[in-house]
């Protein structure tokens, strides 16, 4: 019986909260727009950083140091180099790629290569025997490469010359900037909601006073305001959610899931976009309710 009564009170407060958003729409609009802008940026930041995370992992798996060895070395000397490399820390695996194999692969790639390479005799192959070295920690890639360079008999070491690394560090900086931006926007939004609810509270001082006089509990006076914040959050998250779902799946379709180069592949839109939407809705609701309950605590003196 008591439970039914509480449900009815909650139902009334939800109706009142929603009605207040509509009734004070010009006031709520400032908070709603702020939530929209914040959540749009949150969406871009989340989609961006998740994708960056995704393809950096792909790139990382591909990080290889190619070690070219002197043509004059015999098999024993090459084995010695392998051992020397293996003795370094940060080495995950070493694969031997002989100059003959490289030549065979090149032949398959292009008919012109095929013609040229076929004309070489066994001893005329000008290519180098190589080791393909994979590292454990890709952040120390260049350090490891430099150590390998110093080993005797190693002619050239190639590892992308830091290009990929600097690309990754740029991504990381962008990620950090986005996080800071998102946090500050969330705070600004919460602050705006505090203000909206504050003005609502002030403009309804008389109503609150009357409710108190006829025996409304503090909780039942506060609850509609908190629900009002909740609705501001929900309404504010609708547009960002639509933009996320439609925008991202359109982007995915238009690009075929690949940007710039085949390295950078996008995460499939479903269910990814739905997860992001869920997070946006939760952020909207939390920010809305947090803002309003703060305002209620601060300005509703009862």
């Amino acid at each position, binding site marked *: 019986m008591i439970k*039914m009564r*509480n449900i009815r*009170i909650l139902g009334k407060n939800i109706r009142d909260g929603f009605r207040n958003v509509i009734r004070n729409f010009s006031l709520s609009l400032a908070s709603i727009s702020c939530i929209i802008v914040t959540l749009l940026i949150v969406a871009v930041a989340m989609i961006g950083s998740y994708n960056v995370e995704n393809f950096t992992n792909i790139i990382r798996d591909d990080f290889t140091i190619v070690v070219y060895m002197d043509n004059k070395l015999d098999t024993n000397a090459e084995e010695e180099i392998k051992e020397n490399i293996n003795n370094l820390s940060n080495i995950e695996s070493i694969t031997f790629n002989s100059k003959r194999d490289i030549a065979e692969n090149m032949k398959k790639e292009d008919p012109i290569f095929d013609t040229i390479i076929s004309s070489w005799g066994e001893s005329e192959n000008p290519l180098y025997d190589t080791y393909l070295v994979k590292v454990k920690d890709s952040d120390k890639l260049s350090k490891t490469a430099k150590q390998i360079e110093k080993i005797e008999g190693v002619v050239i070491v190639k590892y992308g010359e830091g290009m990929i690394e600097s690309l990754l560090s740029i991504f990381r900086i962008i990620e950090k900037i986005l996080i800071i931006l998102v946090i500050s926007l969330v705070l600004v939004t919460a602050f705006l909601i505090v203000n909206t609810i504050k003005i609502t509270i002030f403009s309804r001082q008389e109503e609150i006073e009357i*409710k108190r006089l*006829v*025996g*409304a*509990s503090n909780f039942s006076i506060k609850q509609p305001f908190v629900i009002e914040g909740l609705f501001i959050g929900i309404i504010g998250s609708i547009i960002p959610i639509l933009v996320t779902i439609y925008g991202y799946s359109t982007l995915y379709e238009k690009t075929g899931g690949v940007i710039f180069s085949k390295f950078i592949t996008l995460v499939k839109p479903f269910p990814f976009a739905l997860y992001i939407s869920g997070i946006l809705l939760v952020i909207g609701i939390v920010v809305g309710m947090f803002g309003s309950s703060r305002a209620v605590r601060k300005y509703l003196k009862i």
Partner: protein
Amino acid sequence: MEFIRITDVEKTYPTGVTAVYGLNLNIKKGDFVFIIGASGSGKSTVMKMLYREEKPTHGQIVIGGVRVDKLRNRKVYKLRRKIGVVFQDFKLLPKMTVYENVAFVLEMFGYTKSEVRAKTLKALDLVGLKEKVKNYPDELSGGEQQRVAIARAIVNAPKLVICDEPTGNLDPDTSLEIMKVLEVINNLGTTVIVVTHDRDIVNKMKKRVILLDKGKLKKDFEKGTYDKNEKH
């Protein structure tokens, strides 16, 4: 049977002004009581202490067995649900219809729609405003607005109705009308306390009169009248 017992009550405001002191008063269940006195006599403070808007600095106030002076702030609403309060300025919500102004109280307490409807219409019927349920407060006369406020005060069937200058804004005929409405409510068993300046009303109603002067009880008499010689 004692319904309200005020014992040795004193109220000193933080400003240092003592509005009430040494007040002892008993009010029986079903009584109709006028509290009269000049401005600054402490009658409004007594009212406010009854519905626990103010707390006495000293003494006891018991209403229906509850120590009002000991009531914690967050429990005050429980007391207020048992007391109806009517003010000089009506305190109606202008954006709500007559019906909504009364019904929202019950909705807030979680009554079902049909309960709300039945009780609201009954209260509005009692004050003679059943025909005006769809009107807004600014479409009503002062007397009608006060009757809406009375309907709101009694809709949850309180044991006590407190009226602070209920006829202060009304002409003499309308004032008497309001008093008749309060008398009907009183006849149904509700204790009614009216704070007023209105000499005519007090004299016509012939009810118990409590006269306060400078924060003290000066006179308390049954079927009393508001003596012309009393200062007010």
